[in-house]
């Protein structure tokens, strides 16, 4: 690592508040900037989800109190359908891009990568801080778009044209959609900077002895996710710019001739709406794994630590991560089985999607075998990690239905899909944020998260998560479409309404439970029990730095790595854990004397 960083280590106390917390070059501060910002986004996006569920349980009902908060969107307390479309569009966009991507990849990635590989900082500290301050305007634009006339974008988080391209198609397609595109451009720019930084750091800045196959699975996963981001996002960048041109400069990339709106035929001609879907899902599917892979990495590391047992099948795990990463570029068409895409292509995507289930299954088997004959400690972190395994299995199995294209004919765009991705992608990733926070909190702030509150949060979240999304699968199988403002318009959906009410009640408890987490996070930050260097007796390199680590992480001496991070209950070792910095001779010495 450069001398500049070393010098800065010693001059840390001289840094101004601005250079320390606002424009910092310290990867840990930047990681926390990302994480805390993303938690605020999550609070907003979660509130939107509550409104969505409120409407679905009691469609068209009047809530006079809400009129005071949303006078334009809920006149007389009744939600307008166009507000509803904006709600789920912004819920999806904010959650996927501005909460989960930021928290898991940018937040934890920044915080953990240098600590886990033994670097003093990221390869490009300036670029790193720049990437954070690039995404902030994106967030502001997205959130601000909810308060303009005609509201935020309303064409869904995947923004399919023509709906997203034509101003008169839906109220959100006026200024809201333009702001959505601009917000996304900021996000993509930021994510690309971050991705390049992560990949460079992992390739070049590993400590002495930190070979690739001694890296923790968390680092492997974030490494792969960063590469996926760099390769996949350009497709959306191109698509977003083309959409912007279709909207404002008269081009027709996605717009065919003969579009008839409000007694007028639009002058566009020659475009193809399906082109957007291909571009979008070429990003969209890898994006799913960008969220899931870090969470899978956390699960492996946390389970291993709290099972006091090496992760089973490390090499298979690395291969599975890469297999998932590569295959994620070959499955985008399974979002388009009934889109009008050539059905022969559908067969190709069916096969690829079935193949991607294999590495995912292998990961689950490895986690189960890690649990077997372990010495399991149930903490907030390990409970959430176990929750991830359960939720991932549930979501993965419903994925098989959707991968089988003949079944997707019936299930596509129903609540079954909503339930499926909330389990496998949103749920696994959300639980990853909670598990990761509980596990690395002492490293972040030098204090422990309150375990009692943490466990209460786990139980409420876990039970209600199943309460929300398990019954939702039945709604989908019964044929309830997604994005319906009022499902009771359909006679065959009326009998299902009690299930919708049940889901909404669970969702409210789920939402309220997150306040416990928020409180616990900020309270423990200042008032939590003080933690030492290695409160979990874990092996990873990050646990050899002090809590919280100083700028430059390792003091005067760079760490040297002698082993992988999973030597728990190592035969012959004096304790049930062996940090990566302990050489074999030391164990032999300990055995002798």
């Amino acid at each position, binding site marked *: 690592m450069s001398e500049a960083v070393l010098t800065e280590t010693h001059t840390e106390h001289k840094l101004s508040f601005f250079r320390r917390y606002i424009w910092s070059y310290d990867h840990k501060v930047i990681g926390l900037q990302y994480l805390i910002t993303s938690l605020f986004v999550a609070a907003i996006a979660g509130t939107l989800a509550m409104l969505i569920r409120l409407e679905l349980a009691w469609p068209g009902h009047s809530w006079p109190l809400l009129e005071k908060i949303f006078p334009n969107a809920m006149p007389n307390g009744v939600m307008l*359908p166009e507000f509803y*479309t904006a709600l789920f569009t912004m819920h999806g966009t904010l959650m996927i891009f501005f909460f989960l991507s930021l928290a898991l990849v940018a937040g934890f990635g920044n915080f953990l990568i240098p600590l886990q590989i033994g670097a003093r900082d990221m390869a490009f500290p300036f670029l790193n801080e720049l990437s954070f301050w690039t995404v902030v305007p994106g967030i502001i634009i997205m959130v601000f778009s909810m308060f303009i006339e005609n509201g935020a974008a*309303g*064409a869904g988080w995947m923004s*399919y044209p*023509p*709906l997203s391209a034509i101003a008169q198609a*839906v*109220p959100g397609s006026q200024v809201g959609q333009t702001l959505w595109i601009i917000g996304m451009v900021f996000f993509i720019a930021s994510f690309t900077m971050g991705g390049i930084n992560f990949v460079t750091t992992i390739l070049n800045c590993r400590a002495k002895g930190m070979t690739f196959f001694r890296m923790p699975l968390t680092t492997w996963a974030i490494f792969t996710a960063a590469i996926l981001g760099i390769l996949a996002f350009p497709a959306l960048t191109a698509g977003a710019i083309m959409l912007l041109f279709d909207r404002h400069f008269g081009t027709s990339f996605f717009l065919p001739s*003969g579009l*008839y*709106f409000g007694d007028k035929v639009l002058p566009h001609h020659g475009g193809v*709406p*399906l082109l957007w879907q291909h571009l979008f899902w070429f990003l969209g599917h890898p994006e799913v794994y960008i969220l899931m892979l870090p969470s899978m990495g956390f699960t492996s590391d946390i389970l291993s630590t709290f099972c*006091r047992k*090496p992760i*089973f*099948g490390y*090499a*298979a795990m690395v291969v599975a991560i890469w297999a998932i990463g590569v295959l994620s570029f070959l499955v985008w068409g399974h979002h388009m089985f009934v889109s009008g895409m050539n*059905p022969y292509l*559908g067969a190709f995507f*069916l096969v690829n999607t079935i193949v991607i289930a*294999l590495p995912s*299954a*292998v990961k*689950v088997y490895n986690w*189960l*075998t890690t*649990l077997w*004959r372990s*010495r*399991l*400690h*149930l903490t907030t972190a390990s*409970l959430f990690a*176990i929750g991830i395994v*359960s939720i991932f299995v549930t979501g993965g*199995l419903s994925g*098989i*239905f959707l991968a*089988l*294209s003949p*079944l997707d*004919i*019936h299930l*596509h*765009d*129903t609540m079954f899909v909503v339930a499926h991705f909330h389990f496998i992608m949103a749920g696994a990733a959300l639980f990853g944020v909670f598990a990761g926070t509980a596990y690395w909190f002492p490293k972040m702030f030098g204090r422990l998260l309150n375990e009692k509150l943490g466990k209460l949060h786990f139980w409420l979240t876990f039970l209600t998560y199943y309460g929300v999304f*398990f019954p939702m699968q039945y709604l989908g199988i*019964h*044929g309830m*479409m997604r*994005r*319906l*403002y*009022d499902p009771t318009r359909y006679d065959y959906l009326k009998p299902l309404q009690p299930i919708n009410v049940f889901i909404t009640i669970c969702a409210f408890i789920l939402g309220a439970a997150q306040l416990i987490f928020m409180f616990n996070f900020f309270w423990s930050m200042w008032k939590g029990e003080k933690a030492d260097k290695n*409160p979990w007796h874990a092996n990873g390199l990050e646990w050899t730095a002090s809590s919280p680590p100083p700028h430059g992480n390792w003091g005067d001496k760079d760490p040297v790595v002698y082993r992988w991070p*999973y030597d728990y209950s190592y035969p012959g070792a004096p304790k*049930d854990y062996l940090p990566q910095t302990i050489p074999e001779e030391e164990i032999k010495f300990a055995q002798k004397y």
Partner: protein
Amino acid sequence: MSKPKGSKEAFFLAFFFICLAVFGALSFFKPWLPKLASDRTGIDRLFHTTLIMTGVVFVSVQSIVGYFIWRFSKEKNEKALYHPHDTKLEITWTVVTAIFLFALGGWGFKEWRSTMLQPPPKNAIMVEAIGQQFAWSFRYPSATGMFAKVDPNLISYKNPLGLDPKDESSKDNLYTKELYLPVNQPVVVRIRAMDVLHSFFLPNFRVKQDAVPGMTISTSFTPTQIGDFEIGCAQLCGAGHYTMRGMLHVMSVEDYQKKLDELRKPTKG
């Protein structure tokens, strides 16, 4: 490191997983799929097989997780096993899973081929479904089986589809707001959209096909039950998406003919 006092907690967690497994298994005794009214029985068979296979995995994995947590979180447990890998075991489960997945995938492919990649039968009835914010409308061809040319520039109150009057068959193309089909007769639905994406969804028929502006996409099936069925729009098409409900009436062949003749009679106004 706090001492593992897990047993009560582990018990609850294990109990939950086992409840989940039992609930997951039991809940499917109620038939959740809407009653089938078409010839797409293969889809239902594949669905139920997949349900059983994934159901078995779901129940076993969730209960194994539950059992392991309960069993291995006890305080008095011996040291954990140092067991980092087992190549034989890993190869075995990968291969076994692969066999099951490919069997299912192969069946899926076969079903997909017979549903989507076969030319429709020659005697199929042709009908067109047109999606527009926020309603479905339908067009039956002329007696000679022709759909007249359409031009959106000609759309007016009297000519809602923009039929080209120069085209001979435009005179007896039939425009309806609801769809009528005869039972047990194959039908090809040509699906179009006039403004944004829609999706022609017949929950009882296992039929769903997006309607894409600029494209005409055909899907074919055979209704097998007489009755009235709802048509949904499954693709977000704007603020009124939820109102885009259509009706399909499946009738005996005689009733169907009668209905179409009645609809074809010129009405004033």
